[in-house]
């Protein structure tokens, strides 16, 4: 199977996240992911896109770009935001460590990045050329093997 790529653009508004979540759910069904694995992918994407809306492309019209790549081994999703005037470099390594350190189960916030770490096989956050953040989430397709 050659690497296939799907590109989506959405307004930077959480109103549209349900549609994106439904789309990735259908794609994962096509790829024969287990139900549990589909729920994991949907939740990870929800968290990544929510962060992109609230902390990245803070202007609705800036939009968020999703690149979804599939090959025989992996499903890879890259979510790209454009940053905002008050959120420049919000996700520096120091800031990331601070967020993770402060996270408490009894806290109301700060769980998104932790969930992304738990739910993905590989993830990375990088500053992009347009002043925002690229978040990459990789899911191994053979991780379904032992799941119902």
């Amino acid at each position, binding site marked *: 199977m050659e690497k296939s790529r799907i590109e989506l653009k959405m307004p930077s508004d959480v109103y549209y996240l349900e549609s994106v979540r439904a789309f990735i759910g259908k794609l994962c069904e096509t790829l024969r992911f287990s139900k549990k694995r589909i729920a994991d992918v949907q939740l990870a994407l929800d968290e990544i896109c929510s962060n992109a809306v609230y902390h990245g492309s803070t202007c609705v019209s800036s939009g968020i770009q999703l690149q979804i790549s599939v090959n025989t081994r992996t499903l890879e999703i890259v979510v790209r935001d454009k940053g905002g005037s008050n959120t420049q470099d919000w996700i520096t390594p120091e800031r990331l460590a601070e967020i993770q350190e402060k996270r408490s189960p*009894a806290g109301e916030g700060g769980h998104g990045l932790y969930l992304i770490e738990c739910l993905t096989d590989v993830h990375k956050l990088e500053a992009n050329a347009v002043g925002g953040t690229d978040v990459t989430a990789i899911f191994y397709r053979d991780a379904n093997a032992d799941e119902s």
Partner: protein
Amino acid sequence: MTGTELITTRENADVKIIDVKTDLSSYAASDLRKVLEDLLMEKVNKVVVNFSEVNHINSTAVGTLVGIAKRLRQNGGDLKLCNLASTLTRTFNLIGASSVVEIYESEKSAIAAF
């Protein structure tokens, strides 16, 4: 249906029961927060949220429920959850919120726990 029609309230004695009929990502979480904060304003302090029609919840919604539970406890009440699908329970467990908010298998057992 509008956001408020998808999150409705009813009563069982002194317990308010919230029926959520939508998946809870960031957008719907703000509707849920509004319903719960309205109950706090009305001095309601025993609340059960029924998740029987919910297939997805994200960390924003979990955080909302944790925050409201803590405020209800300060008022001598509590927030209890029931009828969660296994994927939702997994999300609460991953975050650790299941040690903060009580989860019950049925609405009856959640109400009885007050």
